[in-house]
């Protein structure tokens, strides 16, 4: 005797606690097992690429804050790098170093958020998230000290930074850097060997390295799959070639490896910042750039290793004050490409974990 059954189609999102915003997955279920996934996005589409075509190069910097709103500094950096490449603008060494410090602090903050909310998705009742929030708070305090903002910094400028760091910044940063490794140790002790967490995340959402490369995923997800590819090493921008750091890579390419890679990257970021602070030169932080910049007609693509992956800006100039084409290569969006391959065959509860391990930010997915 056999029963006639139908798949249960469930809408995960756009309002759902674990889709990290207004993302929607149309999930077909056979009992608890996922048989099909279709991602639906665009609920946060604000048309940034179109809006940017109407504004000057300087006016577009605040837009980039609002893409990956958990990593505004990185977005600023990628954009100003693209403009500098387009218009051949030099940047002073001090500004370069400060950019690296800010970008790496931002990586710590963003990964803290990613790891915390990932564990929240795994069902830990907010405790890991709040622990990570505590550390992220310290980074936000440092940023607030620097530029007065806690979320949308608008700190980088074409040709440097908006202003130099205040005198109290470096002591506060030093204290943070001293505390951070111990905190990461504590966090790993709390959770990395937790049997339930291992059972939930090991072997879940496996992304083989071939598929990872072919699907253009980047950042911790690519490295979690065991591909040693980090733009800070592969294509160094700013002054990253002057620092000594490791690229952590996963083995199995499962959700746990992506979680683990993020934790290790936080350690490496601390190392980079320590070296950058030690080498920090004196000098101006901003070169002379006209307020209405008119780059020559042409195109430029600059990419950085943002916390979420390869963040690139492709700018086309027609010689006017506004970019002719302003294209964002957003890592969160492209990292969703292999979502179906990663989820089919796992359980509903795993879908949440897999999405959490991808660490998407909807401001960047939808732009």
């Amino acid at each position, binding site marked *: 005797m056999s029963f006639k059954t139908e798949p249960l189609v469930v809408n995960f999102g756009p309002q759902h606690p674990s889709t990290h915003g207004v993302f929607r997955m149309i999930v077909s279920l056979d009992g608890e097992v996922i048989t099909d996934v279709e991602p639906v996005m665009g609920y946060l589409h604000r048309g940034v690429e179109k809006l940017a075509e109407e504004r000057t190069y300087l006016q577009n910097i605040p837009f980039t804050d609002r893409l990956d709103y958990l990593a505004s500094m990185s977005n600023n950096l990628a954009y100003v790098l693209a403009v500098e490449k387009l218009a051949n603008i030099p940047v002073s060494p001090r500004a370069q170093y400060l950019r690296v410090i800010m970008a790496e602090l931002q990586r710590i903050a963003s990964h803290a958020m990613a790891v915390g909310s990932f564990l929240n998705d795994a069902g830990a009742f907010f405790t890991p998230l709040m622990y990570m929030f505590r550390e992220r708070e310290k980074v936000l305090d440092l940023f607030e000290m620097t530029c007065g903002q806690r979320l949308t910094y608008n700190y980088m400028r074409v040709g440097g930074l908006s202003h130099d760091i205040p005198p109290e910044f470096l002591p506060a940063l030093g204290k943070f850097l001293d505390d951070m490794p111990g905190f990461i140790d504590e966090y790993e002790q709390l959770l990395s060997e937790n049997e339930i967490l291992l059972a939930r995340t090991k072997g879940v959402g496996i992304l083989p390295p071939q598929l990872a490369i*072919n699907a*253009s995923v980047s950042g911790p997800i690519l490295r979690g799959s065991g591909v040693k*590819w980090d733009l800070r090493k592969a294509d160094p921008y700013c002054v990253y070639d002057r620092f000594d750091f490791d690229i952590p890579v996963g083995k199995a390419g499962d959700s746990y490896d992506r979680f683990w890679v993020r934790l290790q990257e936080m350690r490496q970021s601390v190392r980079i910042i320590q070296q950058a602070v030690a080498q920090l030169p004196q000098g101006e932080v901003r070169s002379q750039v006209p307020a209405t910049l008119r780059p020559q007609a042409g195109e430029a693509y600059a*990419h950085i290793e943002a916390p979420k992956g390869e963040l690139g800006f*492709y700018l086309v100039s027609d010689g006017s004050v506004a970019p002719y084409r302003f294209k964002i290569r957003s890592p969160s969006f492209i990292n969703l490409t292999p979502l179906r391959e990663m989820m089919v065959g796992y359980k509903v509860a795993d879908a949440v974990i897999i999405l959490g391990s991808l660490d998407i930010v909807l401001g960047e997915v939808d732009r």
Partner: protein
Amino acid sequence: MTTAISGIELANQIKASFAEAVLEGDERAVILRSEYLTQVASFLKTTPGLEFDYLSHVTAVDYLDYFEVIYHITSLAHNHSAVIKVKTPDRDNPEVPSVASVWCGANLQEREVYDLMGVTFLEHPNLKRVLLWEGFPGHPLRKDFLTLEGKSPWQTIEPLEEGHHVL
């Protein structure tokens, strides 16, 4: 450091296998004939020494006379990158073959280009709008979007006085 392979050099390599495929190659990019795109893509991906296995970026630019679809490709093994471009002159019905069969990372990105720029990718596995909803009038990243008669969603908004920006 990722070495950018110059378009001229890459064009010569492609010409050796596909004599017809290259329109022109300049310092930055190779411009291909669109009908050869898929073959050249798999050639670039599999040829030893090139092995562009990572499609980092797909986008399109509206140059009013034509659309230019741009592919930034990278080889993780050799750490070099290149840019290939395809032009499609037909403004009403721009068509480019899809490279999603070669690099599946093109899947979402081509959908985005289709959605916002209106370039149709032939043989794409799932060519639907991705950021905007089905039935949205026009393709907003086209340069003439705001002037399209009867297509702009903002056409009902009162026109502003002279000298004010539309947006």
